[in-house]
């Protein structure tokens, strides 16, 4: 007897969310309250539309921005969509080099999706059990240290995975990334392709099974295969098809790819994927898993010389990745005025203006927008990453973004730091903010303080994305938010070489 399908599996099997697209205008007219739970909370995510229980009726749209590349005219369409939502509107840069828009009414969806299509943007399959936005080297094509330009590879993988014959109903979400530089740390992905040599040829070694969750955290492990760039789309499809067929659909907390690798054993898993790949006409070479990624990611902030002589990119710090309509429109205008109109998003939730000629730098640095998004932020703000938090996420146990920003600003007022320290903030054990990757990871929690239950964080320490990657480990299981600044202050002094500023007492 086939095991009973869970509620979610039933919903996905009954109907694919992509079929809802032509009906969006009609759904808006009839009102979202009439949608059944599965359509509202599951199927719409195939179109990138997210019902938000915290703001019922105000929806989120998550895009797909392969390799984190976006152009001014595209950003303007998104800015306009957010602007139309007035005070409800905002946007986040996500940890997958992506953008999500908030505060939209269901009425906004049909026109937004057409407007996005007209400028070459899509939000398709950006949520739930789908291959999520595919990340790549944020400096691809302009990076003096580049090994491979990841942009065409990422585009090709996306095109293959969104094609009509690709899986539409995975057992769980699936993260893919392509590395292109020595700092492409990507082991938090289910499937990562890291630049690697084989017989003097540069290609990619395949890493599988990385993920974070409330139950388990794993870095990806070498699958022992090597591929040329043009094989990545076909191989990704093979992995997805196998995962679609064989992944665990009974227990959602045991369904990420690593559980399948565990279940089959690495060898058997590799054989199964190779068989699938060869069914698609592909052939992969064995490989020892050695790769060219040797250090933690650069922030890319500030003025940086491009590979192209005379051109620069300017990396701007967007505090905890939060944007509003005005900032988005201004970013687009600035990119157009001083660069080529192209922008890049980083996994640290920051933005780069690229292709700025030497002689345009000064004018760019004088833009008022840079008062808000600094090219030279403090050493904590530069690499502070945060999930959404309780303004928009019902799981959140603390207001993640506002806490992160306030605490980081206060610490920078009090302390001098010799180098950047990466803090990762997440609102609950679901770990969307990747706390295990932070030198300091902070996770929303509740703790008892003066006999009351109060908002608190768990502290994790020691995440390392260098040659010898490590996940951060639990250090303190509940620091009330009211005590957080002094606690972090001491940690930074004891472990990260911070010094109190003379002015602060």
């Amino acid at each position, binding site marked *: 007897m086939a095991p*009973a*399908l*869970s*509620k979610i599996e*039933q919903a996905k099997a009954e109907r694919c969310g992509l079929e809802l697209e*032509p009906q969006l*205008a*009609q759904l*808006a*007219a*009839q*009102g979202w*309250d*009439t*949608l*059944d*739970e599965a359509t*509202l*909370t599951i199927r719409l995510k195939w179109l990138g539309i997210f*019902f938000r*229980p*915290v703001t*019922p*009726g105000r929806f989120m749209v998550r895009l797909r921005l392969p390799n984190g590349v976006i152009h001014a005219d595209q950003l303007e369409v998104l800015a*306009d969509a957010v*602007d*139309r*939502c*007035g*005070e409800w509107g905002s946007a986040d840069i996500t940890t997958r080099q992506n953008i999500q828009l908030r505060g939209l*009414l269901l*009425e*906004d969806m*049909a*026109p937004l999706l*057409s*407007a996005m*299509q*007209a400028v070459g943007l899509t939000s398709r399959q950006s949520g739930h059990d789908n291959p999520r936005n595919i990340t790549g080297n944020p400096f691809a094509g302009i990076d003096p240290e580049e090994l491979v330009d990841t942009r065409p590879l990422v585009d090709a993988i996306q095109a293959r995975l969104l094609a009509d014959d690709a899986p539409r109903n995975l057992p769980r979400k699936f993260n893919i990334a392509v590395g292109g530089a020595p700092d492409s740390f990507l082991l938090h992905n289910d499937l990562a392709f890291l630049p690697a040599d084989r017989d003097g040829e540069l290609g990619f070694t395949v890493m599988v099974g990385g993920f974070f969750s*409330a*139950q388990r955290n794993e870095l990806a492990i070498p699958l022992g295969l090597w591929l040329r760039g043009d094989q990545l789309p076909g191989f990704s499809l093979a992995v997805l098809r196998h995962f679609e067929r064989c992944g665990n659909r009974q227990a*959602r*907390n045991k369904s990420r790819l690593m559980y399948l690798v565990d279940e089959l054993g690495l060898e058997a898993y590799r054989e199964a994927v190779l068989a699938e790949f060869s069914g698609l006409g592909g052939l992969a070479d064995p490989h020892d898993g050695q790769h060219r990624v040797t250090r933690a990611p650069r922030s890319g902030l500030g003025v940086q010389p491009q590979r192209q002589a005379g051109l620069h990119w300017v990396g701007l710090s967007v505090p905890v990745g939060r944007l509003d309509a005005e900032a988005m429109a201004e970013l687009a205008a600035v990119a157009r005025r001083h660069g080529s109109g192209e922008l890049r998003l980083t996994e640290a939730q920051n933005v780069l203006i690229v292709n700025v000629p030497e002689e345009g730098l000064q004018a760019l640095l004088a833009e008022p927008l840079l008062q808000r998004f600094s090219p030279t932020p403090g050493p904590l703000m530069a690499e502070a990453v945060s999930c959404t938090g309780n303004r928009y996420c*019902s799981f959140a146990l603390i207001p993640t973004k506002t806490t992160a920003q306030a605490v980081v600003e206060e610490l920078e007022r009090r302390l001098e730091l010799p180098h950047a320290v990466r803090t990762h903030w997440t609102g*609950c*054990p679901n770990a969307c903010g990747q706390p295990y990757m932070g030198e300091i990871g902070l996770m929303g929690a*509740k*703790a*008892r303080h003066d006999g009351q*239950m109060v908002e608190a964080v768990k502290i994790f320490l020691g995440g390392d994305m260098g040659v010898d990657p490590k996940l951060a480990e639990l250090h303190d*299981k*509940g620091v009330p938010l009211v005590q957080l600044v002094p606690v972090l202050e001491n940690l930074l002094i004891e472990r990260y070489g911070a010094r109190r500023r003379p002015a602060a007492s």
Partner: protein
Amino acid sequence: MRLPVRVETAATRWTVEGDPEHWAQLQALRRGRLPLQPWLEGLSSGALQPEPELLAALWAQLKRPEVERLLASGAAADAGPWLVAARQELPALVATPAVVEAWLEPLLEHQVQCPARQARQWLEVLAAFQDPRVAQRLRRVVLEASRLAIEPGASDGDLQELLPLLPLLGRQRQRQDAPLLLGCALDPGPLAWRRAALEGVALGLSTWPLPLLVPALQRLAEDLSSALAAEALDLLARLPQGQRALRALRTRPLDPAVAERLQRRLQNSPLVLVVHGRQGGVIPALYCDLAQQLSRRRGAPVLVQALTAEAPAADAAFWLAAQRAGSITVVPLLLLPGEHVRRDLPALVAGWRAATAGALPEGAGPSVGWRPFLGSWPAWQSLLGDVVREAAAGRPFAWLHHPLQGQLAQRFLHHLARVWGQEGVPAVEPGPALRLALDPEGPALLVPYGLAPSRTAESLNMEGVVPPSWEVLPPLLELPSVRTFLLDRLEALP
């Protein structure tokens, strides 16, 4: 629906808030991996606190008898934690039949029996469900509160508690509540109250009758609170025919930030410029240039359609702009009331209406409107008078037009003759055969009355057609003043 298999564990150790295992345990409970009964027992007997996270985890899993039992027990004495849990959990569940079945009736019953403050909180829990009885209770409370809200010195504290009910009333989507919600948003009262009412309007937007909604939102767009005004404006922009309502606001005294927002929301309709065209449907390049520049200025597509050819293909961008603007405008760049204007134009407009119905889903379809033909615009006629007088510089001149038939056409020609102080001359046959009924001593300047090059006009430049001493004015669209006039006027069209 099959229920998930439950793992019965002999002794479940209850964790409480703050316990490191608590979160994981609630997740397991929520996903149906822990037995429900012990938790229900614990809650009903008072052994377990009705903590919001716990209630939220249970919400979707209870059956009606269990709900009834819980609501009758001490666990429901305080609505507070239930409300917190409901806010988090219910919105996604309210259209799920099993949840409605389990909760709606027991909640309706429980809510009426509670004392005032509790009743208000239970009402908010209840209000997540779309149901006429729920709407009626909400309406009563909001109506009472709205009287309180307009009293000067009304206590903000009381209203604060009631704020969440306004969006919830909107979500009930009962057409009859339009006047109440719009009234709450419009009437003087605490800003927070008015904004909550407007959010109620937003969340039920497609429900409200437009004849009530549009004027109310237009008034709100002029409100002293720019936050209210801005939201009202953005709501207008989302309505079918909203562009018309927005345009009417252009002459109103708006807050400067709101006026800027209005500029951002106004969406020009795509234009179809109808021109005569040359043989074989060729469109003179002058028109294409004009269209391109105009399209940039208007931020909307502009097509040129020749009467001598098939309608041009409209692409996705054209339909999107048409949908956003709510209309397509056909502008006949024709100069005389001939057959084309009288017969071809209505047919052409009908063609666009049919194409619109084919390209866009019903209800989303923009209207197709048309302007009078260019030659009839008084501003055009007086401009041409100036242009010709200036070019003639005191010399005698003549204007040549395509021959026209019918009384209407003759009246029109007489009218032009009066405006310009000179009778027009019909140019019968193009080419060398062109006979100009003109005094050979006559005019020093010939004005072919056409926008773009035509065979007739071109033949004027042929050897021997006109004496070398006569000057022939180029096609009108080549004159900078004419071009500027057209760009400005066409840009200003909605």
